[in-house]
């Protein structure tokens, strides 16, 4: 195994104007560090609005132009500048976008999945492969000729996934591939992802669908308010979750309909007022004094990477 993709101390901020004049920096990703090997799936979970999609966009080099970015992203040890990002995008690095608005409304489904090719021969190969993937997903030949507005939510999602499967990438960045899919399509996607991993692909799987994360990934990173708060072995997302060390991660696990559907009060704070100290302290029942003053550093504990002064080590 070798490191395919390394993200180190990545920060992203937007400058925003308030009341017309006052300019403020909105820091939406802070010192994010994570890596992916070949033959590995790293799942990224976290609160809505924690910076997961922006992380994906930074790796692909498709952030809006008013975003400021700091830190390092490396592909096989090589620093990815804009040029390299563009060279890899859609080829060595495939992207499954979160928004179904990414489908071109004016293009038939089949044409956009296949993309532009010059050689007729290559095109035939792709057409055949496209049909195989569509068959797997129960997308009939009628769907080939449809425009995006004619697709149901789940069908559009399947089309986005198919596009990424058609290329021969080394890395896949999947941003929410499964919402709105029915059970059978979710299982199909899980099989596809695992098969790709076995072939050697490295993947970042961004998702709220913890079932898919558990079935496919090796490690799970959890984000909150732009910070990585825990990176843990996927097997810790099981049973009563007693090896999940961060209080937010534990709440997330206990909130699942298949575990306890437990209510945790409190919402992620606004990026305009990132709290001093631990990003979770306003909602954390486990806080201690220093949580209010200092930002906990990422550290290793029982094989888990964690950002917390008072982790749930004894299975509370």
């Amino acid at each position, binding site marked *: 195994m070798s490191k395919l993709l390394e993200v180190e101390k990545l920060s992203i901020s937007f400058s925003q104007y308030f009341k017309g004049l006052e300019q403020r920096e909105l820091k939406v990703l802070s010192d994010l560090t994570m890596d992916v090997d070949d033959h590995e799936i790293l799942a990224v979970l976290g609160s*809505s*609005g924690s910076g997961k999609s922006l992380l994906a966009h930074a790796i692909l080099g498709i952030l809006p132009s008013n975003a400021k970015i700091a830190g390092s992203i490396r592909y096989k040890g090589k620093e990815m500048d804009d040029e390299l990002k563009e060279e890899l995008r859609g080829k060595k690095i495939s992207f499954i976008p979160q928004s179904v608005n990414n489908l071109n409304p004016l293009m038939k489904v089949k044409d956009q999945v296949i993309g532009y090719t010059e050689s007729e021969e290559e095109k035939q190969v792709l057409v055949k492969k496209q049909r195989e993937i569509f068959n797997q997903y129960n997308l009939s030949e009628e769907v080939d000729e449809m425009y995006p507005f004619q697709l149901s939510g789940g069908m559009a999602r399947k089309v986005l996934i198919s596009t990424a499967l058609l290329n021969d990438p080394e890395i896949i960045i999947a941003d929410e591939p499964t919402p709105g899919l029915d059970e059978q399509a979710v299982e199909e996607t899980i099989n596809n992802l695992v098969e790709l991993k076995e072939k050697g692909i490295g993947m970042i799987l961004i998702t709220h669908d913890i079932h898919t994360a558990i079935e496919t990934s090796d490690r799970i990173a959890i984000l909150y308010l732009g910070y990585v708060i825990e990176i843990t072995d996927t097997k810790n997302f099981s049973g009563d979750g007693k090896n999940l060390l961060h209080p937010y991660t534990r709440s997330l*696990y206990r909130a699942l309909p298949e575990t306890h559907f437990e209510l945790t009060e409190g919402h992620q704070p606004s990026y305009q007022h990132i709290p001093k100290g631990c990003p979770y302290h306003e909602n954390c029942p486990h806080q201690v004094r220093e949580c209010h003053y200092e930002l906990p550093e990422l550290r290793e504990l029982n094989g888990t990477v964690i950002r917390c002064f008072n982790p749930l080590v004894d299975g509370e």
Partner: protein
Amino acid sequence: MDTLKAENVNFGYGSHQILKNLNFEMNNNQVIGLFGDSGSGKSTLCKVLTGFINDYEGNITVNGQKHKGGYNPIQLIYQHPEKVMNPRWKMKDVLEESWMPDDSLLDEFGIKREWFGRYPSELSGGELQRFSILRSLNPKTKFIIADEISTMLDAVTQVQIWESLLTVARKNEVGVLVVSHDKNLLNRICDDIVYLADITD
């Protein structure tokens, strides 16, 4: 008791028939789950029930009455709230277009007053979804049709949203139809689960 009834409903897009002789009934004290394959017509049914599609055959009634103009007592909440909000309106206006809830209800949904001055693009998906739910809880609403409203949210926010929505719905005696592919979720919150294939031919 208020009864929502769909009788012998037929609808297709052009020649592509989607809903065949659909029959369905629920009352305002129920939370019913709607389950079915992708592409089978659940979202289409939601649009038919709430009048966003109106060239169907058959009858949709509340207490035997068809909806004719004015506020629709059957309200739809979508998966993507940003798609149905005017991007140039501030959140206060987005909400007030329907009604203005009192402080205790705003708090129940964790709505910060500072958000009122913002545009939809300046809020996260979870925050926007709270607004669209609250908007649909106008006192004149008798039924809420929730089409995959929590699939894009983290699990913690998902519990919060359902907890708040169902608390208010039970209190105001509003019936809720919940469309989701998540069986575990439906089992947690619904009194009963209906399969689309079982209510159509």
